[in-house]
């Protein structure tokens, strides 16, 4: 992760906030799946046989993926 660049205080003034997220709660998951059932979310995927997990990781590392890499079981 790179450092967050500095910025003028003006941008944060008027009680604006900077916030991060970590992990998930089960509530997030339940809410999100309910939302996902209410309209179709399209995910772009590039599949790899599960034995090619190393290749999938390399593709992710080098930015070669067209979409999210997904391992599939035979």
């Amino acid at each position, binding site marked *: 992760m790179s450092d967050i660049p500095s910025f003028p205080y003006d941008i944060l003034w008027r009680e604006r906030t900077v916030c991060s*997220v*970590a992990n998930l709660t089960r509530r997030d*998951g339940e809410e999100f799946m309910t*939302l996902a059932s209410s309209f179709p979310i399209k995910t772009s995927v590039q599949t790899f046989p*599960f034995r090619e*997990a*190393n290749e999938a990781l390399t593709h992710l590392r080098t930015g070669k993926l067209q*979409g*999210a890499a997904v391992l599939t079981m035979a």
Partner: protein
Amino acid sequence: MMQAMVLDSAQTSLRETTLPRPKLGEGQILVRVCACAVCRTDLQVADGELPNPKLPLILGHEVVGRVIEAGKSAERFKAGDRVGIPWLGWTCGECRYCRSGRENLCEKAKFNGYTLDGGYAEYMATDERFCFSIPESYSDVHAAPLLCAGLIGYRSLVKAGDAERLGIYGFGAAAHIVCQIAKHQGRKIFAFTRPRRTGTPGAQSRCPWRNRGLRRHSHE
């Protein structure tokens, strides 16, 4: 027995190997893995950038699978049910975070594909309380990225409150899902990307406003 891709130590390739099927603990379900998405966090774990991985380790925390068997006192799912298994695999339920709706910050939390074995394998045993049902309209493969990229994007979106305008910085797997939700909710989205970036999911098909340039692009 089962086939698995195992990380023996940081900065080494995963090794294909045969392992015993995981044994079921109390409250756990045995899941036959159908699809498992690959997350950038998997790279960080494999590279040794996260401090405390279980080793040897089976990576993977965006898992879609079918329940094979329910363990003792596991009652939420039955054999044949489809489940999604995310990053959060166990929490203590007792600490100040768990008791205040912030179990994501539990200091004793265990994570699939990091401190617990994950989904780069044929089978996975997991605590059923942390699994989700997946809407039937999604295929296994297309549902898998919902389980981390989708969830963390959703959590970020909720944190942004009811803002009418959203800025998305970088455009990877999480962004390509969260912008569809935000658009569905009628919000304006601004995406900021680096020029000539490759590997941007859905950039052409669903996000026509996003060009590969330094300029800011918007979509209403």
